[in-house]
């Protein structure tokens, strides 16, 4: 509220002095609804975008949504901006809206994402062959639980996140049983418990993610996926000549910004700003660490991030607002 008051006065002064600085004041005054999810990096990035939109004269509001409902909300224009669209877990829902013409792709960040089998560092001491995937078979008994024994247990995310895992296990001849957790909370709840007792565990994880800061660990290295994705489309590619999916997940998955389809028409200058915003991997890590490691709240972290990256932030401000 106070923010908004201040902004109004600033806008009023600007209007009175007739400086062209707040050219965007002529655009819609309806607030831009910025989506606020429930993990640190996204929360800080959303607030960075919000602060920058505020600075160039827009009204903005944060709207809390989970990753499931947000795409419908952006499709109908109830929410307008998502700063982190992940390739691995959100591609299908995102593309559905994009193809229906209800959302547009707001461009990729430089930061890439990786979603892969992962283990906390102490597992390496118990199973020294890691991170190479062949170690999974050597340590199968060690990585098993009574209900999967003698096969190793791999704790994956919800089944629809990575359906290719089933085929990968067969194609690479792994002695592994998949157990599907229903949510990220479940995944990391088990990790927390296992790490407290240094129990061996292999689970699904992604980067950038706060988990890396709290529990250092590594991704398992499967055979590298080729650039043309032949590994998935052509069975003869790779070490198993008869089956596809004999490789790991893509290493550099995209991290995009997602916009409501009507965004560019209604808020043209904001659209320019959002297309310019481009976070690198280290920038995102730093933003998340301000919350997860330094204990700042999300608003303070966003303000501090802009302050300490002022040059970068300035370079994102488009001409229409300069």
């Amino acid at each position, binding site marked *: 509220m106070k923010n908004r008051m201040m902004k109004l006065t600033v806008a009023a002064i600007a209007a009175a002095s007739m400086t062209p600085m707040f050219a965007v004041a002529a655009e819609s005054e309806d607030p831009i609804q910025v989506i606020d999810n429930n993990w640190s990096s996204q929360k800080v990035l959303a607030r960075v975008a919000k602060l920058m939109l505020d600075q160039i004269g827009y009204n903005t509001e944060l709207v809390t949504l989970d990753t499931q409902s947000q795409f419908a909300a952006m499709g109908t224009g109830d929410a307008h901006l998502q700063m982190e669209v992940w390739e691995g877990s959100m591609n299908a*829902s995102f593309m559905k809206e994009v193809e229906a013409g209800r959302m547009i792709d707001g461009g990729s960040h430089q930061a890439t994402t990786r979603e892969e089998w992962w283990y906390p560092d102490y597992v390496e001491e118990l199973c020294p062959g890691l991170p190479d995937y062949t170690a999974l078979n050597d340590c199968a008994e060690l990585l098993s639980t009574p209900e999967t024994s003698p096969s190793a247990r791999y704790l994956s995310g919800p089944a629809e996140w990575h359906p290719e895992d089933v085929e990968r296990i067969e194609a690479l001849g792994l002695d592994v049983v998949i157990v599907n*957790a229903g*949510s990220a909370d479940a995944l990391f709840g088990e990790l927390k*418990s296992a790490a407290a007792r240094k129990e061996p565990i292999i689970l699904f994880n992604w980067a950038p993610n706060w988990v890396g800061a709290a529990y250092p660990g590594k991704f398992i290295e499967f055979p590298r996926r080729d650039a043309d994705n032949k590994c998935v489309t052509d069975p003869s590619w790779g070490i198993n000549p008869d089956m596809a999916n004999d490789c790991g997940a893509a290493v550099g998955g995209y991290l995009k910004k997602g916009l409501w389809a009507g965004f560019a028409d209604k808020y043209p200058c904001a659209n320019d700003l959002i297309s310019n915003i481009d976070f690198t991997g280290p920038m995102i890590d730093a933003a998340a660490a301000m919350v997860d490691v330094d204990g700042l709240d999300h608003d303070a972290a966003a303000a501090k991030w802009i302050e300490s990256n002022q040059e970068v932030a300035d370079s994102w401000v488009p001409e229409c607002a300069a």
Partner: protein
Amino acid sequence: MNTSTPVVKQSGALPAKRNLIYLVLVAVIIIAGILAKGQFAWVAKYPRKWVIPLKDWITDFFEWLVYGVTFFKGQSYEFVPTDITRGMIKVFEYQLSFTDGIFFDGFRIGVDPLPWITVVGLMAILGHWVAGWRMAMIAGGSFLYLSMFSVWRPAMDTFSLVLLTVPLVFTIGLLLAIRMSKSLRAERFITPFFDLMQAMPPFAYMVPIVVLFGIGDVPAMLAVSVFAVPPVARCILLGLKTVPNEVIEAGEMAGCTPRQMLWRVKVPTSRSTVLVGLNQGIMQTLAMIVLASLIGASGLGNELLNSLQTLKLGKALEQGLAIVVIAVALDRLSAAYAHKPKQYIDQSLPWMAKHKHLVFAAAFVIASIVLAWLVPALRVLPKEWPLTTAPMWDAGVDWVLLNWYDNVQGFRNFVLIDILIPIKKFMLSIPWPTFIGLVVLLGYRLGGWKLSLAVGLMISFPLLTGLWKETMITIYMIGSAAVFCIVVGFPIGLIASKNERLSRYIILTCDFFQTFPSFIYLIPVIMLFKVSDISAIIAVLAFALVPMIRYTNLGFRNVPFSIREAAIQQGATRWQQLRKVELPLAAPEIMLGINQVIFMALFMVAITALIGTQDLGSEINRARTGNKTGRALVAGLCIAFLGMISDRLIKAWRKQHSYRQENHD
């Protein structure tokens, strides 16, 4: 009664013969199923091409409704359906911005929200007005807790939402109940919808609500209403129907118009039942707060989910407790108000003296605001305010993890590998014609052909819509959880019924668990039991155990003292008393408890999907990705039908049973 004569007359021979026929039928169905399974592929696995694509139809319908259709195209008054739904949202948004303004957001014109000291004091005054000093302590103390444990802002956010939702729920409930009390046709029409709304997990109808109404506090309010209206309306309807005839006759003699009869006679007479309805509305609303935050409701629910996401269990627990505290305060206040005797005040007194509480409250508001203006800590507590129990809880969880983990594993592995997995395999191996056949037969046995037709249709629904496997896994999960609940809950309820002091603690614990957000159990359960079916079942247990204890307690307490005395005089041992006398008399209530257990467990199915299951709950969870309206609703309907089947069967059993009892008397 005419129909009862033959049963009484031939009570010896006929039932035995009848039971034999049923036994033979059961055997035939089972054997035929097993034989047919080997013969025909369509028995072993229901063919995909026979599946009715109902979910695609529903999804297409919503696509059309939201994005496709425009009414009166080209006219000046053309509109799309979402214009209507969005218009409704706008209406409520205005009200919400007002309560939000008072409690936590302030107003744009520069007015701050009420200081915490004012709200705490007002609640205490309200408590005193309703039921004296004790209530003042409870209400004021609850809100003091909220302010002291740094959850004030989200708590007030939630409180403001509750303050608006509860009257909405109550009004809709009251109007529906009045409509239903006036015409049997209306009651018959609305009741199935209520059954469905109560048995369907809220997750399932959240997707269509998002598509139609959007996201945020107001759509969340609507989702809560869908969940909370039926019990409220049912309660009020019960009150209106049980108004004594003499009272109505008196009203008629006094020449009441129908309107006067309703508002001056029936509603005031059933005041306490109507207010129990209000009470239900409050409890149901708070029970839904965490789920509502999944579609954009801000406040405690949202904060709690955020804490869980980063595994800050202690903090999540404090936020969960805050929800319980609000629930308890409002529950006690409304319950006390329901029982508040009407006070007759001397009309000759001056206005000030007649409205002491109001005057005092107004004076307090002014004084406290001035005070808070002088002392900022009374307005908003400083951020570094040290009171938090979170580290203690976190340490507690870590301790349990380190010290209990190994002991728990033996139990976990035994139950999982030697009990649960075999049951699951067995359930999945039952041919579908056998299962449907047995359900139909049971329906016939308990309630005749009408019931058997109803349950037969309902159990066929998952088969026809292609969700048979998920449904069987759901039945396995729910069934196992229900057995656990009975095994654990029955003795606790029994003990509670025999011991006054213990009973009070047990009931208190039950109250707590009923409003404590079930999301919080998920993480500790996973930490101890890993992602597996047993985790899901234990999470269900924590929530569904409550009704088992409550109803068992109630059942044994309601056994008439004279009957117990008679049994003792006849020289029955304690064990005989319990088994031969008390248990049969308490059985109807206990069955009602089991019925509730099943409903609660079905409610939890959608939530335990977050642990990781392969049942209908995970089907709904999957549908929420990408907002597949049809998929969510069809899976929701399957769950609702399971609940309704068990409800119908248990009610029929009770009817038969209490009928027999009457005959024995």
